[in-house]
């Protein structure tokens, strides 16, 4: 190790995290400090008040775990894992979330106004009687792509890396999981048992107070391995710990990420953010994000505080929202008040996938085929404006996840010589178990593992929510709380029964 001095940062999850001087060069940049102002769990703190931890502290946690994982691999394979690998991976871990948006995935996955689609539509011309194309779903660039852009464009981060003889391009490739020369770099920070997921499960459990994060992190880190093809694996001894981790993550979906109120508040905030993007308070197209990344100050201001300040202005400016019916301006204001005062949209429909079911549950089938079409008629029958109805859908999640097209990159293509099978294996995110002879196999393929029968299990929950406008307006001039709570609960119950009857549930 170099002669640089060591300091540490105290962390409630990992204790004292050792940090080297050149790593402080990165941590101390304004671009990295921005992560202090981005919450890790967006709206989860509306249900779990302790869950206000930031991307900054999560990044330090991933950095700590990566340091330990790579140190262990280096101890086991000094010929493969050297001092430079350790240096590069620790920095990549530190920077893995540097491109995150305010309110994290909530803003990242926003459906943007169709401005860009109008431009794309001008690149093609419809023939007579031809089938018409759908609008292009426009979203912001993924946060890892933005992260790569940050590392490659922002002078403070680049300077901190270059002054320590690290090429920003190398870090950018790891952030986008496309390090072709050393694919195992990608696996340390992104696979089903990686340092990112390990930290967030531990940290989110700690700060929310839910008990699903009690995984045996020490044992997992002591039992990492590299196989002969340099895939990061665990030894068979750590299988139970890996299974425990996967199940913990599964429970975390239901208890935190897709918890009923969290999902409803996120649906509400998403609707508000969409309105803010349409009215220019947030970037209205992907191109604008790249301009912000390149803007020395603009990117630093693009954080939760900015969004919160705009919502506060919307909520408290110029009198209460007028309606019903509510026009666009009044709806934006109504949503802003609801977010500020934590008025929960009421859940009026819920469909849950049976984990072991091969087919969709009946309720989910009805949700997929009928809900979107029927919301307008339910809105009119129940006298709640259609704009106040939201849907939430976790989409299908499994114990382990693979997205095959992620494998199609220049580097991995080069490495695999066009061999599709090899390419898929190279980037597969499934957990591997070392067999002791330099080979490894997927945990999900081991018949003795709990993951084997559960690997086909699916988690999915879909819900419909209604924001009752009178419930929001009451908070501006609150009467007897106990009475109005009962009243709105009853109203939501009536809507729920109506929907259930209409869907034949």
């Amino acid at each position, binding site marked *: 190790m170099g002669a640089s001095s060591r300091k540490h940062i105290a962390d409630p999850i990992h204790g004292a995290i050792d940090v080297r001087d050149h790593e402080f060069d990165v941590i101390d940049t304004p671009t990295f400090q921005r992560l202090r102002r981005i919450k890790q769990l967006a709206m989860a703190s509306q249900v779990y008040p302790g869950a206000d931890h930031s991307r900054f502290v999560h990044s330090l946690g991933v950095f700590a775990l990566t340091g330990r994982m790579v140190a262990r691999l280096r101890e086991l394979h000094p010929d493969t894992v050297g001092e430079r690998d350790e240096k590069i991976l620790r920095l990549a871990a530190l920077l893995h979330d540097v491109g995150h948006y305010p309110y994290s995935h909530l803003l990242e996955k926003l459906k943007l106004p169709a401005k860009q689609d109008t431009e794309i539509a001008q690149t093609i011309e419809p023939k007579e009687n031809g089938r018409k*194309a759908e609008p292009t779903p426009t979203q912001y660039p993924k946060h890892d792509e933005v992260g790569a852009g940050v590392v490659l464009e922002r002078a403070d981060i680049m300077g901190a890396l270059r002054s320590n003889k690290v090429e920003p391009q190398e870090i950018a490739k790891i952030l986008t999981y496309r390090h072709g020369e050393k694919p195992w770099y990608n696996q340390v920070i992104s696979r089903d048992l990686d340092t990112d997921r390990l930290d967030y499960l531990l940290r989110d459990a700690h700060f929310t107070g839910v008990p699903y994060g009690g995984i045996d992190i020490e044992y997992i880190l002591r039992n990492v391995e590299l196989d002969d093809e340099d895939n990061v694996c665990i030894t068979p001894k750590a299988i139970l710990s890996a299974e425990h981790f996967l199940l913990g993550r599964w429970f975390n979906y239901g208890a935190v990420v897709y918890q009923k109120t969290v999902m409803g508040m996120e649906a509400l905030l998403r609707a508000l953010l969409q309105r803010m993007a349409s009215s220019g308070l947030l970037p209205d197209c992907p191109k604008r994000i*790249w301009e912000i990344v390149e803007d020395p100050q603009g990117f630093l201001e693009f954080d939760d505080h900015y969004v919160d300040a705009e919502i506060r202005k919307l909520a408290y400016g110029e009198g209460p929202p007028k309606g019903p019916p509510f026009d666009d301006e009044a709806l934006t204001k109504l949503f802003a008040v609801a977010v500020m005062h934590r008025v929960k949209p009421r859940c009026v429909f819920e469909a849950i996938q049976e984990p072991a079911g091969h087919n969709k549950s009946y309720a989910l089938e009805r949700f997929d085929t009928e809900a979107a079409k029927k919301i307008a008629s339910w809105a009119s029958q129940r006298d709640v404006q259609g704009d106040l109805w939201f849907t939430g859908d976790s989409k299908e999640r499994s114990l382990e996840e693979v997205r095959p097209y992620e494998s199609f990159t220049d580097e991995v293509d080069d490495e695999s010589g*066009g061999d599709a099978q090899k390419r898929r294996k190279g980037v597969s995110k499934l957990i591997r178990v070392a067999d002791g002879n330099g080979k490894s196999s997927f945990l999900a393929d081991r018949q003795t593992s709990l993951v084997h029968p559960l690997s086909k299990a699916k988690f999915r929950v879909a819900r419909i929510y209604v924001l009752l406008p009178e419930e929001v307006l009451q908070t501006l001039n609150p009467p007897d709380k106990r009475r109005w709570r009962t009243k709105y609960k009853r109203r939501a119950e009536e809507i729920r029964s109506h929907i259930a009857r209409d869907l034949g549930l």
Partner: protein
Amino acid sequence: MTNRGVLLKLLMDKLGVDPQLGTFRNRLVLQKSVYLLQALGMPTAFGYNWYLRGPYSPALTAAAFEEVVKPLEQGDDTPSGYTLSRETEDRLDKLQGMKDQADKAGLAPEKWLELLASIHFYKHKMYFPPEKQVDKNNAEALYGHMPPAKRHAFTAKQAEQAAAALNAADAW
């Protein structure tokens, strides 16, 4: 299929790219062609970063698979109801004009596309720290700052030829 999927499918047809994107060559041609078409003003806004083979857009890969390969597998024939607009055809003509010079540069068509996109990226997108400032109009100087693998694959003269081809197409 989406508008963007239709555009990509029609572009693939024009570029001679197999819409299943089954080979590395096909994906490379699509990546570098879309990069250059965006440089010529096509409003698709795919974000590119620098990778081993020059500018590369993971978002384009995702869009191509989600919005072209998958719908085609499901029998979607929306692209047959569309043609490319005049503006897009004009941009493709300019791209073709650049591609036609591959022979003169002594490179295979896809290698030439890689060089065109790479030298353009170096001029317009690559960050140079203050101590490494470079005259961005000087192709040879840009070439001198490229990674060793690129300098091994291409000569300084070829980089200059690429800059001249981009210049002739008003993309330099």
